[in-house]
């Protein structure tokens, strides 16, 4: 079997290709909503911040960890709300009369 470093590299490469492919040939109108949508998706940093704060031992770690959770939660919640509001504009079918 491949060792974990190589597995990680493969995951990195495949995820990058997936991201690239998913976005290519997107219409200009969707540039901003898509940027906002991907902004929401990296809000997953919240789960990492939770784990880091959950394992924090010293006060310094707790303070920085808490800040991390605070910021990450804002990224996720705010990113979702902004994207949803933008995309509501597209809900009416593009070619209705």
């Amino acid at each position, binding site marked *: 079997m491949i060792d974990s470093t190589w597995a990680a590299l493969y995951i990195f490469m495949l995820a990058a290709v997936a991201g690239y492919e*998913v976005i290519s040939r997107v219409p200009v109108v969707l540039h901003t909503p898509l940027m906002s949508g991907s902004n*929401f998706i*990296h809000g997953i940093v919240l789960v990492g911040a939770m784990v880091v704060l959950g394992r924090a031992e010293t006060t310094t770690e707790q303070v920085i960890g808490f800040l991390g959770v605070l910021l990450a939660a804002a990224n996720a919640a705010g990113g979702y709300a902004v994207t949803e509001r933008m995309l509501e504009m597209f809900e009416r079918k593009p070619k209705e009369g």
Partner: protein
Amino acid sequence: MDVIIQLTYFVTAFLFIMGLKQMSHPATAKRGIVWAGYAMAAAVIVTFAWPGLHNFFLIILGILIGGGAAWVVAKKVAMTDMPQMVAIYNGMGGGAAGAIAAVELLRNVAHHGEMSIGLLVLAILGGLIGSVSFSGSMVAFAKLQGLINSRAVTFPFQQPINMAVLAVSLIFGLMYLFGVQNGTVVLWFFLLTLLFGVMMTIPIGGGDMPVVISLYNAFTGLAVGFEGFAIGNPAMIIAGTVVGAAGTLLTVLMAKAMNRSLYSVLFGAFGAVEQEGGEIKGSLKPMDPEDAASMMAFANKVIIVPGYGMAVAQAQQKVKELMEELEKRGVEVKFAIHPVAGRMPGHMNVLLAEAGIPYEKLYDLDEINPEFETADVALVIGANDVVNPAARREGSPLYGMPILDVDKAKQVFVLKRGRGKGFAGIENELFYADNTNMVYGDASDTLNKMVQALKNF
């Protein structure tokens, strides 16, 4: 329990990618964000079961305060302020990645080097990119929100000084990597990377902000991905890397739509250039809204060019009323949408769609440009740089940017609040042209007067 966590992360990663895919088509876009939202919620919930966690009170408190405040603000803020909202929430994500890096590096100090060198490299790189994204996005937010001057700020030897700041922060990173592991080194590393983010962003003018925000979005993604490797969290690895790649491509596409290279956005200090030479002939000819309205009433074809001024005045609803009044009189009305009108690509489309103006009346640059010659009236609502003919002339700071050929219409009306220059800080010779009249005032008021005039006609 571990199996459930990993399985949830697995499904989350899949739904993120599928959600992003759906978001790239107008018809399925809304569904895409909802899927991604469920996936995120599930991932957050199962993470509470992560083995060995404590500080649950702080975790929940952080989520409630941070998430709650961001949610309320994002729901309340006007559609026109969306660009800076994206900037600030993106910056926060970068800051969170930086915080994760900081805690990991400090823990590693306390535990006398339990992390492997490879993981340390990723943690440090993610910390660097994340904190640059954080402070850079905050500057972008402040510029767009008008908290600080949106013009490019330049000073002598700017790029060498910026590079020096980056180099010194990298030296601190390397010192940590090669054994000088203490809290002071970590502190200086983060202070300098934060400073670099600010310094990298201040020379970038407001007009280029969309591209920069998109770039920082990709940065945050990458930082999240790297920190995912560092703390062994597969959901972060996949989501972060996907956003990093997608964001980079999106940045390039946006820059291309504005006919600017990424290099010139970052290092060109666009907007700091003073207008030189090019004496403008003619004079500004003000006109009353009522007179302009009566001329439009007798036109066969009117092309409306919305810009940031329309967004600021929240005038999209009035624009729709004007369109309806004109159409009642048999006037053909079309909308010309410049790819970067407003502050972001697609900004105008979103606002006009919000007002209920049908999709098929909106034309993009290449479709509408040949039509200006046959238009009786071009109505420019608070757009400036995107209709500046100076962009056709070599040597102008705007040279090369594709513009709407508004000046080719028989008559041009420009709705404008005052005599100020556009975002790029360049005088617009269109306003002085023989066939142009200026209608001063708040776009919403002016349009209201026009609609009334048409109704009473």
